[in-house]
C-alpha cells in the first residue's frame, strides 16, 4: 500500500509538471481527486482496512494529497502567469507615438509681465489700484501738476473725447484717485493698465500700450528708498546681476525727476545701459492736490512701460507683435520663465 501511495505521488507530480495548459492540468486534478480519481479510489479502500491501521493510512494519504495539491496550485499559478504574460506581451505600446494633442493655451506676455511685477510688489506691502481708461483731464493732467498751458502737454499728444475727458495717457491718474481715496493716510500702491497716446504704430511705438506706476507716500520717504525699490524691481525682472544708473530728467509730477538705465546684457554678450523707466520724488504740488501736507508727507513714484520690459526681456524686435496676437508668437511665452 505504501508503495502504491508513493507511486501515485510520483506519477501525479510528474503529470502536473507535464501539464502545459490549464485544461491538461485540470484533467490531472480530475484524474487524482475526481470521483473516480486514483487518490479518491485509494481513499475508498480505507474502509477495507483494519480500524487500527486506518489512522496511519489516512495520515499517509493526506500527506500525499497535500503535497500533490500544493504542486498542482503552484503549477496552475505558473501557467496562469505565463498566459497573462503572453497576453500582455501582445499589448506592447509604441510609447513614442504622440499623445492626445491638447490645444496649448497661453497668457498674454504683457499680462505675464504685469503679474510678475504685481507679485513682487505685493510681497513688499503694496496694493494694486485700478482706474478707468476713459479718464478726466483733471486726474490725468491737472492733478499730476500738468496745467492746461503746461509745456509738458506738448510731449504727449492725447486722444481727447471732449474738453474734460480723454483716453488716459499714463497710469498716473490712478495715483490721483488713490490719493484722494486715502484721505491723507500713507499709501503704497502700484497701478498697472492700458494707456493711449497719438503715436503712429511702428516697431517702437504703439498708440495703445501698458504701463505700471508705483507710488509710495509716507512721512520719511527719501530718494534712497526709491533707489532701493528700483533696483529690487530691475533685478527681479532682469536678473540679480543687473545694475542701474540714474540720470536727471523732467516730469511735471516729480521733483527731482530721473530716468533709470539698466545695464543689460546684449545677445552678443556685451553690456550696455538701456533706458527703462522714469521715476522721482513726488512733486509737492501733486501731494497737496492729492490731500497731503507736503511739509509732513513725502513720496516717490515711478512708471515703467510693460512692453518695454517684455521687449528687453525676450529680445523682441517690434512692439506691434503684442497687439497682432499671432498665436505662434503668443505660445512662446510659457509661464515661469526665469528672469
Amino acid at each position: 500500500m505504501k508503495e502504491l501511495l508513493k507511486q501515485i505521488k510520483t506519477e501525479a507530480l510528474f503529470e502536473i509538471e507535464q501539464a502545459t495548459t490549464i485544461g491538461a492540468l485540470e484533467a490531472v486534478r480530475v484524474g487524482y481527486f475526481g470521483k473516480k480519481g486514483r487518490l479518491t479510489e485509494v481513499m475508498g479502500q480505507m474502509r477495507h482496512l483494519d480500524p487500527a491501521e486506518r489512522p496511519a493510512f489516512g495520515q499517509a494519504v493526506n500527506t500525499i494529497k497535500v503535497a500533490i495539491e500544493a504542486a498542482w496550485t503552484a503549477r496552475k499559478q505558473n501557467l496562469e502567469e505565463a498566459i497573462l504574460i503572453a497576453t500582455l506581451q501582445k499589448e506592447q505600446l509604441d510609447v513614442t507615438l504622440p499623445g492626445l494633442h491638447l490645444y496649448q493655451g497661453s497668457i498674454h506676455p504683457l499680462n505675464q509681465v504685469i503679474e510678475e511685477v504685481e507679485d513682487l510688489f505685493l510681497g513688499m506691502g503694496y496694493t494694486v489700484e485700478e482706474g478707468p481708461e476713459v479718464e478726466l483731464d483733471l486726474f490725468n493732467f491737472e492733478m499730476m501738476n500738468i496745467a492746461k498751458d503746461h509745456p509738458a502737454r506738448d510731449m504727449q499728444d492725447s486722444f481727447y473725447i471732449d474738453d474734460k475727458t480723454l483716453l488716459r495717457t499714463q497710469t498716473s491718474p490712478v495715483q490721483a484717485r488713490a490719493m484722494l481715496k486715502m484721505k491723507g493716510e500713507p499709501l503704497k500702491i502700484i497701478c498697472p493698465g492700458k494707456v493711449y497716446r497719438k503715436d503712429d504704430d511702428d516697431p517702437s511705438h504703439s498708440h495703445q500700450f501698458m504701463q505700471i506706476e508705483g507710488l509710495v507716500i509716507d512721512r520719511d520717504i527719501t530718494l534712497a528708498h526709491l533707489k532701493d525699490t528700483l533696483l529690487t524691481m530691475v533685478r527681479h525682472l532682469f536678473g540679480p546681476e543687473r545694475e542701474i544708473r540714474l540720470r536727471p530728467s523732467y516730469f511735471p509730477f516729480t521733483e527731482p525727476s530721473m530716468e533709470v538705465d539698466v545695464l543689460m546684457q546684449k545677445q552678443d554678450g556685451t553690456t550696455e545701459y538701456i533706458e527703462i523707466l522714469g521715476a522721482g520724488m513726488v512733486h509737492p504740488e501733486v501731494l497737496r492736490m492729492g490731500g497731503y501736507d507736503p511739509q509732513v508727507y513725502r513720496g516717490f513714484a515711478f512708471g515703467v512701460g510693460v512692453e518695454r520690459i517684455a521687449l528687453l526681456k525676450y529680445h523682441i524686435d517690434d512692439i506691434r507683435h503684442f497687439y497682432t496676437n499671432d498665436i505662434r508668437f503668443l505660445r512662446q511665452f510659457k509661464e515661469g520663465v526665469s528672469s
Partner: protein
Amino acid sequence: MIITKNSLQKWMKIPDQIAELTNQKIIEVEAFSPLVEATGLIIGKVLTCNPHPDADRLKVTTVDIGGQVEHIVCGANNVEAGQTVIVAPVGSVLPGNFKIKKTKIRGQESNGMICSLEELGIPLDLIPEQYKGGIYYFDEEKTLGSDALEALHLDGWKMTLGLTPNRSDLLSVLGFAYDLAAFSNQTIKLPQHQIKETKTLNPYKVTIETDGCLRYYARYFTDVTIKPSPMWLRNTLMAYDMKSINNVVDISNLVLLEYGTPLHMFDAAKLETNEIVIRNAQADEVVVTLDGIERKLTADDLLITDQEKPIALAGVMGLENTMITDKTTSVVLEAALFEPKAIQQTSKRLNLRSDTSLRFERGVDEERVYQGLEYATKLLIELADAKVSSGVAEHLHRRQLRPSITVSKTYFNEHLGINMTEETLKTYFDRYRYQVEETENEYIIQPPSDRLDLKIPADLLEEISRIYGLNEIPMTKHKSTHTGLLTFKQKRLRMLRHRLAASGLNEVISYSLNALDTIHAYENIGEPIQVVAPMSEDKKYLRQSLIPGLLKTAEYNRNRQTKNMHLFEIGHVYAKDQEFNKLALLMSGDWHYQPWQKQVIKTDFYTLKGLFENTFKMFNVTFVLETCENYSNLHPYRQAHIKWQDEVVGFMGQLHPTIQKELNLAETYVLELKLEPFLNEQISFNYQPVSKYPNIERDLALVVAETVTANDLIKIIKESGRKLLQNVEVFDVYQGNNIEAGKKSIAFHLLFNDAKKTLETETVDEIMEKIIYRLQQTWSAEIRK
C-alpha cells in the same frame, strides 16, 4: 538743441568725456558725433586745370597740398585753377567710411579728391547756392596742407541734447556752458562788448502798454550793408542745421544760439514814427506776417507797433510791412522780453512755432536780453558795416518774478537720505552761482537769473542731487506698515485668466479704438464714444464688444495658415458714462485631437458652452442659455442669451456663415460676457456630509415635440425629483427613423440618493411615476419604448 565743440570752447575749457558727463549730470544726450564724419581732409590749391583727354565732363588738375603736388581728376564743372579747395588725399576717409585710394580714371592718374560740401555730409538745403552741385572753394588764402575742417569751422564734435521743457536755460550755448561749468569747477566770464556809437542820438522811443511785455530795448543802425555772411558765420550756422540767409539775419540767429536771446530787426525806413509802442492786439485785428500769410488776432496777442501800425507779432514773427530786404540800409534792432504764456497761446493758436517763440515760451533770462542786444550790435558793426546811433531806447516795464527759496539746513540730507556736510553743500551752492543768505536753521537761496525753472525747494533738491551724484545716493529698504494683497476681484480675474489659459485658450490683447462699423456689430451697450481728431477711421471709436478684436486676430492668424484658434480676451468696453470689464471667447477649428487614434474634439456650440460653464463652475456661478435672435452677425438659429439670475449677462453663438466665409474661417463660435457681476460674487457655503448610502440610477427616454428644449424637461424632472434626485444627465438625443415627424427623443440618466438612509426601490419608483406624470401633463411627453 545742438551744442558744438567750436561754440562751447569760446566759453570754457571743455572737460573730458563731455557726452558722458552731459548725459549723467545735465540732460539726455540724443546724439554725439563728429560734426563732419571725415578724416584727413586738407587745404589744397588748384595749380592747373585741364579737360580730361578722354572724358568730356572730367577735368585733370594738379593740386598743391602743401609741399607736394598731386594729380587729381575732378568731375565738378566749377573747378578752376587758382582755387583754394578742400582736398581728400589718398588715405583720407569721407562720410560713409569712404576711403580715398590711388586710382586711374579713364587712363588718368588721380591721387585724391577735391570735395564738395555735399561730400562732407552737409545737407543740400544748407549749402549756399554757389556751391551746390560743385566743389567748395575758399574766398581767401589758407595754409596749404593744413586741416580743412578746421579752416571751414566744421571741425570738432556736435552733440544733440534731448531737452525737457523745464530747462529753458539749456536753449543756448552759454546756458549749457553755465551748467557744465558747475560740474567742472569753472567760471564763465561774459565778454564786455566795446560798442563804438556815432554821435547821432538814437531817435527812437519805446513805450510798453501791456503787461505781456516786461522790457524792451531798441538800437538804431544806419549804413547797413546786406550781404552774404562770412564763411565762419555761415558754417557755424550750418553746424546747427541752420541755413545762412544774409549777414543781418545770420547775426540774429547766431545770438539766438549762443546767448538764447531772440532778436528782431525792422527796416527803419518802413517805420512811420520814432515811437515804438508795445500793446495788445485788438480783437479781429488783421496783420500779414513775414511769411505772407494774413493772420487774424485776438486781444491776447501782443503787437509791436510804430504807433501808426503793427510792425511785429511780438515774440512770434515779424510783419511783412517792415521786413529787412536786400535794399535795407537802416535797421531798428529789438531785444525784448515777453510773458511766456502770452507767446505760448499766440504761437499755439496760429500754429506758428519758431526758435524765437520756443525760447520766449519757455522763458528767457532777463539779463541776457541786453547782453544779446550788445552782442548783435557788435556783430552788425563788424559784419554789416553798420553805424549805430548813440544810446539804447528802452522801457523796463517790470522785472521777472524770481522768488528766493527758503529751505531748512537739513532739507537736502533728509530728502535724499544722505549725510552731506554743510561745507560740501555750500560749495555746491557756489558752483551753481546761488546767492545764499543763512539764518540759524535755514538757507535763503536766490538762483541765478537764467535758472527760471528753480522756484521751490524741490527744484533745488534736484540740483543738489545731480551735483552730489544720483548714483552716489545710497539704497534703503522702505519698512512697510502696509499689507500687500490682491482684492477679491483682482484675484478672481487672475484665476479666470489662468483657468482659461490652462483649459487651452490663447489670451489676446487687442486695440480699444475701432472703426465705427464694428462698434455695434455684436452688442450695443450705449452711446458710442468717439475720440476728437482720430489718427484714422479705424481708430475712431471705443469698442463696445471684444468680439471684433477676436475676429480680427482670428482672421490674421487664418491668413497665416493657422487653422485652429481658441482665443479669449478680458478687457474694458466703453460707452457714454460706462466702462466695464468683459470676457470674450472665440473657438474655431479642432480643439483637442489625436489624429492617429481618430480622436478629435471639434469646436461646436456645445464645446464652447461646456468650456464656459465649466470655467464658471469654479466660481459657483451657473448660467442658463436661452435661444434668441438678436444678433444679426451670428447664425440665426444657433445663438443664445446667457442669463444669470434672470438677467441677460452675455451671449454666445456661431458666427454667421456668411461672415465665416468672408474671413475664410472654419465653423467659429463666439461668446461674450459682462464680467463685473461675477468678479465680486463671493462663495460662502457649509460643508455637506458625503452620503454613506448607495445610489439608485434610472434611465428615462422621452418622445416630445421638437420645440421642447432639454431645459424645459430638466426643470420638471428636478422639480418632481426633489431632494432625492442628485443629478440629471442627458445621454441621448435622437430624431429621425422610428420617431414621428416633428418630434424628437431625448433620454435622461437620473441618479437618486438619500443621505440619511438606504433608499428603497419603491420610493424611487414613486418619484419616477410622478416625474413621468408631470412630463406628460406639461409637455405631452411619451415614454419611448
